[in-house]
């Protein structure tokens, strides 16, 4: 029986604000899981804290709602012990790029095969609208008493220099496009980062849905709005490193593209590189049967008397006094 997006829904009441971009992301995740035909029990959605942190409760797969900023280490621990699990980590921009930014960078260095989605809206919604690490310098969103005094993090560039091997950006109101990106991110071998522009209708009154649509930015000739968002794959951009020799050329392209903001905001795949060894391949260099026999699948008990299955005789022999 083919799996449908509805199979990934729970009956839990969703208390996100009406019109929240999070709904689009949730739908896109459920559609992607169905398209990938991942059995519900084979997937685990991990989340941090904040509005986005509630996501797992709305998805009928294993759902682990962790601590503020710590979603990546939780998710990596599970994936390392059981590589058969399809692990998707989600969180907000404050969660992943503020309190959790150290883990963001360190995860890039490992390149573990999982997908991380940041719901990026520039504010801390659940704590009533403080500035997040992605809010631009000088911006004064609704709840701020003064304009933002901190410069913003560029998550695409940060993911790139940290070592993520798939980097893309989606838009919460373009669900089909977002679903396609999630499918590709999940299929990617290695650590995938997906930045999702997710307008917060309650606290970010600057980067609104209307702003992204360009309603304030009309064509002087025909009076039509000029959308700020455009798609990279329609623009001739290609960030895929097929051969490692292309790396430096594409690297500068990724950074340049990641700095586009304002009247033109690209979405789509910025970078993809499967030439970098994923973490399971690196472990297999030292533990050769790791992929076949990872920690979660190891039989630690020998028999029905619950004796240990570990043989430490050689180690003990080396400690023997009269060896």
């Amino acid at each position, binding site marked *: 029986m083919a799996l449908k997006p509805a199979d990934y829904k729970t009956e839990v009441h969703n208390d996100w604000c009406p019109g929240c971009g999070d709904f689009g992301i949730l739908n896109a995740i459920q559609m992607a899981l169905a398209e990938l035909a991942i059995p519900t029990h084979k997937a685990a959605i991990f989340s941090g*804290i904040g509005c986005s942190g509630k996501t797992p409760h709305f998805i009928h797969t*294993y759902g682990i709602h962790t601590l503020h900023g710590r979603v990546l280490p939780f998710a990596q*621990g599970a994936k390392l012990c059981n590589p058969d699990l399809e692990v998707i980590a989600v969180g907000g921009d404050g969660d992943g790029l503020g309190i959790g930014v150290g883990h963001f960078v360190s995860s890039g260095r490992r390149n573990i095969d999982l997908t991380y989605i940041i719901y990026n809206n520039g504010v801390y919604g659940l704590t009533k609208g403080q500035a997040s690490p992605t809010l631009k310098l000088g911006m004064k969103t609704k709840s701020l008493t003064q304009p933002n005094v901190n410069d913003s993090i560029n998550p695409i560039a940060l993911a790139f220099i940290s070592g993520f091997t798939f980097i893309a950006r989606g838009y919460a109101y373009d669900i089909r496009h977002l679903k396609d990106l999630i499918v590709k991110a999940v299929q990617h071998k290695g650590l995938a980062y997906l930045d999702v522009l997710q307008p917060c209708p309650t606290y970010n009154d600057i980067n609104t849905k209307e702003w992204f649509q360009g309603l304030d930015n009309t064509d002087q000739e025909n009076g039509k709005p000029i959308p700020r968002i455009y798609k990279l794959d329609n623009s001739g951009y290609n960030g895929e490193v097929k051969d490692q020799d292309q790396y430096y050329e594409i690297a500068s392209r990724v950074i340049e593209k990641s700095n586009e903001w304002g009247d033109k905001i690209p979405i789509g795949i910025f970078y993809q590189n499967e030439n970098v060894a994923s973490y399971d391949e690196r472990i297999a260099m030292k533990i050769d049967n790791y992929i076949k026999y990872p920690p979660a699948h190891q039989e630690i008990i020998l028999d029905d008397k619950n004796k240990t299955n570990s043989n430490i005789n050689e180690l*003990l022999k080396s400690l*023997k006094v009269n060896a």
Partner: protein
Amino acid sequence: MHDKVVNEITWVIGGAQGSGVDSAANIFSKTCAEDGLYIFGKREYYSNIKGEHSYFTVRVSNKLIRSHKESIDILVSFDAETLFRHAKDVSTNGIIIFNSELIETSINEIPTLDPDVQNTITEYCNYSGGDPLTIKKLLEKIQQNSIKCYGIPYHQLLKNFSEHTNNPALSKLARMINVLALSISLSFINIDRQALSRAIKYIFRTKPKIAEINVAAAEYAYNYAEQIFQNNKFTFSKNKMDFSDIILVQGSQSSALGKIVAGCRFQTYYPITPASEDSEFLETNQVIEQIDGNKGSVLVMQTEDEISAITMAIGGALTGTRTATATSGPGFSLMAEALGWAGINEVPLVVSLYQRAGPSTGLPTRHEQGDLLFAINAGHGEFPRIVFASGDIEESFYDTLKVFNFAEIFQLPVIHLLDKAIASSVMTCKNFDPNKISIDRGYLIKKIDNKTKDQDKLKHFKRFELQKNTAISPRPPLGTENGIFWNTGDEHNEEGHITEDPTVRIKMMDKRMSKLNLILQEIQDEDKALSYNENSDIVITSWGSTKGAILDTLDELNKEGIKIKFVQIKLLNPFPHQLLEKLLNSAKIIINIEMNYSSQLAKLIKQNLQRDIDYEIVKYNGRPISCDELYRVIKGIVDNTVDKRRIVLDYGT
């Protein structure tokens, strides 16, 4: 000359960090153990890579020993600092081996000796000459106590050895001086010389060439010393005991060995003294032979910080893998928030907490038991946890098997308290029996029956099912068919979804917190507390690594016909108050001993038993309690010559 017949000796070697003090001590320990003698050794070092003073004390005996002594029988040195620091501790009739090339070195020429230490030593020597104290003057003073001092021109000896072996390159190998010194010290002990060669080969087993040169150098130095000093030797009244079932094991290996046996297959850590060695041992032995013929493994992850270490270990535990993280106080402080997450989500997790002296960075390479109350209380809000303390190396192996069982049976985090004293010590003990404790995975379910007609039940698996009879719910690993559940740091319902319902809140709190009573019911008494020497009015209470010094002290007192009971508390949370009431029932005097400032265990006893202790013995100078300083105090209490209720021990270099 007559040999000195002894039952035990204390041997100390010192030198600058990086000059081979540890390998010399390891060779010495191995040599004596090979000769059928019991060993207890401990390492002391600064937070430094090269240059600061480090030393190793090895106590050798023909009976079981578990702690060190402060009075030294053989002091082995090749630098000046070791002499200045330790000569005062050499006992009457003891010997000192020193570098005769440094005889004119004065105390103010040693930059690593801070002025306070210089003053103490100068005062000790009653020295009031105009010039600074020199080695020569120090030894003159020392020799007044019938201590024999043997000067070795180490560099000349090394040169002679290189000529002897026609290998001029060796004369520059100052690194070998440690082996020369060690070998010379062994020439003063009646011991099988072959054991020395075997021990050197063992310590350098991965570097056969280096082993060979060191064996030759050791032989050369040994013969040299025998010829020129015509030694009268320390001779053990009894040695060559049957050690066929004895191992010589370091404290940083025992719990890690236990983890392999317990089936821990994922360990995370961030580098920190003195916990790193636990993880490094596991990583070195990451491929595990399974008895069923398969090849298993333990994956060791060095993380970006301790927050990542604990959360990654929790993530791993959710897959049904037995996981652990190893850390010390500063790292454990960072883990507090995640500990609560494991508590509310009922995740089995083992934290090996190797305590060191705090607060903050404290004395990063020194010993303390200062984290007991923190381990019990770390984290906001209320959740059940087990805090379990091991008393020595041998215990820490078996306790490690137990703590993994506890974590899974009760589905909660277990903090396994260890410390720097255990991690930096080495001792002979009975070979470990991996089958002594079997594995109990509690209510872990790897398959869930889907034959039930109740589709609703099938779709709504209750990970946190509220049951009448037990607080323990079924726990499937992530990935189990029909077992989908949710976890959240929020309060949750039976499926694991967020709830703020006041009734559910009460039920879930009751479910979790009732585990504390369950633990007290289920855990056996001998795992809660151990009691030694019954029928005494005087009872010592303590926990953790003070055990060795206490038991050795009791042995000494027994010889004098003084019997004192010792209650070693292992389960510190939940506190086994009923058992302790029984064990302390007949006590007229309670002496509580701890390596911290505020007698943290005494506070627990007061809180749980409404019982004051009568004497508190504490130590917080970063150096473990020696059995001779403890003996003096306990003897004083027994003889009624101690006029204080609080005794602060202060011995240590």
